[in-house]
């Protein structure tokens, strides 16, 4: 199998709230450290990626976060305007300026996804159609939640099938050819060790295979450290029963809760590993006990990813 960072296009997906964006940037940092010109493309324009680096207002612009690592927030409308400008020249501009056309295009189900995927594809080209734009070695896509994620990957193919002929079909086929090429594109799932994220990851793999796509890597995020051994639980419980000091009681209860959560997590991690039975296994990233995720934390995650990749 081609190494993950040898692929030009890497989709990161997973259930909402599992830390996709964080993992996407950490992976971006790893790629940039290896000297690869990298961009993290966020779909749906929430500006989370750029927010972490405290530079605002960039949106649909390629913004350099650290040397070699860029980010962009892709929204469908801007992608459409760009596409029309580049592809259709004066006609494109005229059509693009038409409100009816905007309404038509953006109301057509799937069109938003297609336009966003089109921009992702454009970022991954050696010869960018955006004038003056330099090529990227790696494009990391911070993709929508699992369920929608497969739909999104499928969109270009769907449009190629529906439209059959014409520029949309042609463009759809071009994008789909890249997505379905395992030497050029990888899909990475992020899951926290909880029941639903694990179940979604397992069924994501099935739906990807059904689509003749593959799950290349699974990252278990926010894994608690094992602080207490099972034989220490009895000691903690007895101490809690005897102790009358409120602070000690709180701390002991917190310890027992933490142990229970860790146990649940370990069970879910086992379920994930057994269910997936992946060659590359499952990479683990720790839960970060931090008030905010700043640069130092992201670099730490990048360190941990780097040694496991």
């Amino acid at each position, binding site marked *: 199998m081609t190494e993950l960072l040898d692929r030009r296009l890497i989709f990161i997906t997973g*259930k909402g*709230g599992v830390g996709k964006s964080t993992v996407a940037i950490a992976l971006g940092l790893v790629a940039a450290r290896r000297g690869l010109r990298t961009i993290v493309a966020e779909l749906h324009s929430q500006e989370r990626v750029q927010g972490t680096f405290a530079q605002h207002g960039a949106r649909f612009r390629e913004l350099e976060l650290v040397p070699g690592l860029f980010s962009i927030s892709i929204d469908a409308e801007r992608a459409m305007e760009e596409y029309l400008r580049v592809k259709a020249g004066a*006609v494109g501009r005229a059509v693009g300026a038409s409100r009816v056309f905007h309404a038509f295009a953006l109301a057509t*189900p799937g069109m938003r996804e297609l336009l966003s995927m089109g921009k992702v594809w454009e970022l991954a080209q050696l010869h960018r159609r955006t004038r003056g734009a330099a090529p990227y070695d790696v494009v990391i896509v911070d993709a929508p939640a699992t369920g929608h994620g497969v739909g999104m990957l*499928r969109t270009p193919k769907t449009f190629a099938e*529906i439209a059959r*002929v014409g520029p949309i079909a042609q463009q759809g086929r071009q994008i789909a050819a890249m997505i379905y090429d395992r030497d050029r594109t990888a899909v990475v799932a992020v899951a926290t060790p909880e029941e639903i994220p694990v179940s979604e990851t397992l069924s994501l793999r099935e739906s990807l295979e059904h689509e003749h796509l593959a799950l290349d890597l699974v990252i278990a995020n926010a894994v608690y450290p094992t602080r207490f051994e099972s034989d220490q639980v009895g000691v903690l419980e007895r101490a809690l029963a005897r102790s009358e000091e409120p602070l000690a009681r*709180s701390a002991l209860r917190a310890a027992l809760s933490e142990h229970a959560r860790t146990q649940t997590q370990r069970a879910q991690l086992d379920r994930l590993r057994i269910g997936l039975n992946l060659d590359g296994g499952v990479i683990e990233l720790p839960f970060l006990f931090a008030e905010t995720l700043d640069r130092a934390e992201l670099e730490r995650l990048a360190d941990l990813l780097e040694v496991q990749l």
Partner: protein
Amino acid sequence: MSVTQLLAGKRVCICGGSGGVGKTTISAAVALGAAAEGAKVAVVTIDPARRLANALGLLVLDNEPRRVDPGALAVNGTGVRGELWAMMLDSKRTFDELIDRVAPTASRAREIKANRVYRELSTAVSGSQEFTAIAKLYELEQERDFDLLVLDTPPSRNALDFLYAPRRLAAFLEGRAMKTLLRPTGLGVRAVGRGTAPLLGGLRRITGVDLLADLSTFFGLLGGMTESFALRAAKVQKMLTAPTTGFLLVTSAQREPIDEAIWLRRTLARIGVPFAGVVVNRVHHDMLSGREPSQLAAPLAEEIGPALTRAVAQNFHDYHVLARRDQGNIARLRHALGGHSLLLVPYLDDDVHDLEGLWRVHRYLFSPEQERERLIAEVVA
């Protein structure tokens, strides 16, 4: 304020918020609580954890609410006076049923369901789950006699999708933009083929004729139905903005979900969907109340030894990093919402996946203010 007061006079409760904050659990606990108080309640869930689905008896998936066995609901002597019904949304089926309902004849319905634009529309496309969730909610509201409907919203990255996606899809089905483009209706392909208007010529260059032809066929099939869709969409909109509807915002205490909750609250105000309140789920409460974790060491070390004490103290310290984070974010939310009371559900030891767990969450939502304060104090001290 408890959920009882927040939902007084409501017939529809929509639980929305960022992905991964526990919307399914909260919506089930809200429904359970309302049923406990004597109401006939149905909860529409989207994708519950398997054990929660089992606990709610969601085994027969026929896209209709089923009554949860009252015997199974009674845990530790607490039962429900009313009725709890539950269903899991089958998005594709809901869409098909909508077509069956609106189509003038059965054969037309069949043709539409076989159309390839429709097939993509009703399955692959994002937004279809949001659209069908609302469609189901409307159907239940119109045709069934529930006192309260609780809707768990689909897992999307952006909570706002839930409010906008159905409108987009409804607008598409109404075919407003298409009508303007393909006038006269039904002759779209010919008009595009001739390329008379420069706009249509441009469209053809950009989209390809076949897509327009397929869309035109699709809208040809929909024919007079587009008006029914428009009428329906207007009624759905009326339901969503009625004073008997309440949007219950669910969030965790992390930064991004809180940001999104604040944003969502403003959007609700703008589009006229009544706001019911906020549930902050999985809160790390402060257990130190001004003391230092270091004060812990001496008395504990005697009991459990120095090594284990260090682990306990480190864990306690780490927990309080999160508690500080949560308190900061909650304060920000409180400030942004201006006086609206928040319901806080603590971070429980385990994922909630059974009825006992739901009852546990229920107490933080439905108990009177003082009782809730006592419960939180219990967690803290």
